[in-house]
């Protein structure tokens, strides 16, 4: 049996959005993609750039698993149209380790067992990187509040807070 070709129909085709050229710098690498405007930054990362470290947990901005840094700020990539970020600098979980050396947050998450299934973890770590850059969280209460956009169903929250505190103590 031969692989299927696109469905042939006599009727007029219903168009999908035209693709637009989008330039991004992802984890220090310039990339150019042709993307339809309905493609989210999350889907562009996962399906087009094969950067599947950024996770799709809800696709509606409710879980934080898709958190990445855009121009240094943490955002949810599932509610971000990639075309709107043309020219932006994107950092994903794959871009945090440098030359094989884990980012301090990555090491702290391992040390404190700040995850179980690992699916929320890239979003937690990117969110924590954003939190550190913002520099507003000092106390455990502040860390908890400002990390509340990242749901961990395995329930590793106390360990996540401990991991972040460890990195704060060292920076």
């Amino acid at each position, binding site marked *: 049996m031969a692989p299927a070709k696109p469905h042939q129909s006599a009727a007029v085709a219903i168009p999908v959005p035209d693709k637009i050229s989008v330039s991004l710098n992802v984890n220090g690498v310039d990339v150019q993609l042709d993307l339809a405007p309905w493609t989210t930054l999350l889907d562009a990362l996962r399906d087009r750039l094969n950067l599947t470290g950024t996770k799709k947990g809800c696709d509606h901005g409710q879980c934080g698993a898709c958190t990445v840094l855009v121009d240094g700020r*943490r955002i949810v990539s599932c509610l971000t149209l990639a075309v709107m970020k043309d020219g932006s600098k994107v950092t994903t979980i794959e871009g945090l380790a440098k030359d094989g050396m884990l980012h301090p947050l990555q090491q702290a998450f391992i040390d404190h067992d700040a995850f179980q299934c690992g699916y929320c973890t890239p979003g937690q770590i990117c969110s924590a990187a954003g939190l550190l850059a913002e520099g507003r969280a000092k106390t455990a209460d502040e860390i908890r509040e400002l990390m509340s956009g990242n749901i961990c169903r395995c329930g590793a929250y106390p360990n996540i807070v401990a991991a972040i505190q460890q990195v704060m103590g060292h920076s």
Partner: protein
Amino acid sequence: MINFQYARAADVADAVRQIAADPKAKFIAGGTNLIDLMKEEVERPSRLIDISRLPLDNVEETSGGGVRIGALVPNSDLAHHPLIAQRYPILASAILAGASAQLRNMASTGGNLLQRTRCYYFYDIATPCNKREPGTGCSAVNGVNRMHAILGTSETCIATHPSDMCVALAALEAKVLVAGPGGQRTIAFADFHRLPGDTPHRDTNLEANEIVTAIELPARGFAKNYTYLKIRDRLSYAFALVSVAAALELDGQAIKEARLALGGVAHKPWRDVNAEASLRGQAANRDSFARAAEALLHGAKGYAHNTFKIDLARRAIVRALAQASQGTPQSQSSKKIR
């Protein structure tokens, strides 16, 4: 999500031109609400006009001693802007009570005003909803309505406005600056959002061909005696059951000026000048606070699952006024209620 066209607006005039040309077009800035609703097929715009690069991201003092906030200032930047954090801390606090750090980094000031309700039926396109599809009926009136409105409702809609920021803006008597084909106009905050009446599909009095360009705060910031108290079903990252923005100006123990607005209870941030008037000249104590709460909740009506909100709001108002009068505003990170 349905097929749509995408275009960037070159400037405000271009944005207005583009939206006027296509009645099914929508502006997009932060996208935090619109993209969500497009994925649910609740919003089905034919075209998105990207306004995110327009130069509407300044926070600056006005000649009248107030502050003008560009419509594209991200929520988090606004909350942490020195002018806001110091002079209008009630606004900063309300912003920080909403959503998550990530969403606040994305969401724009103008977009926050235009957030749509979290009513379950509005979101579920398999159920009737007058807001989504006028004339189909309100499923919430006799349905699951624990989160729904107790004030200003109509039989056609009992949805609430989900914003925290807007509750503080209502209390501060902000003004909304909009641009349209006929030029600029200013809308008092109280007149910006609508009650559902028999047109629940219209959330605001913004015309379809208009764009929000800025918010103006008057000089009065209530920086000393204020609070934003939000009650919700978990300790963070949930929409309000009831929230209270309370702001006072005190002369000793006497109340010179009072502002009081509720979130989570109506189709718009709920304010009543009578409730505020009842506080003026009174001693700041639980009696006067309770009277103000009574006045603000006048006419409140519960449905099958949300009657508790009336009493909860009453208590929250009294508590918030106490926090404001004592100068101990609610922290948004420490969850113990002050």
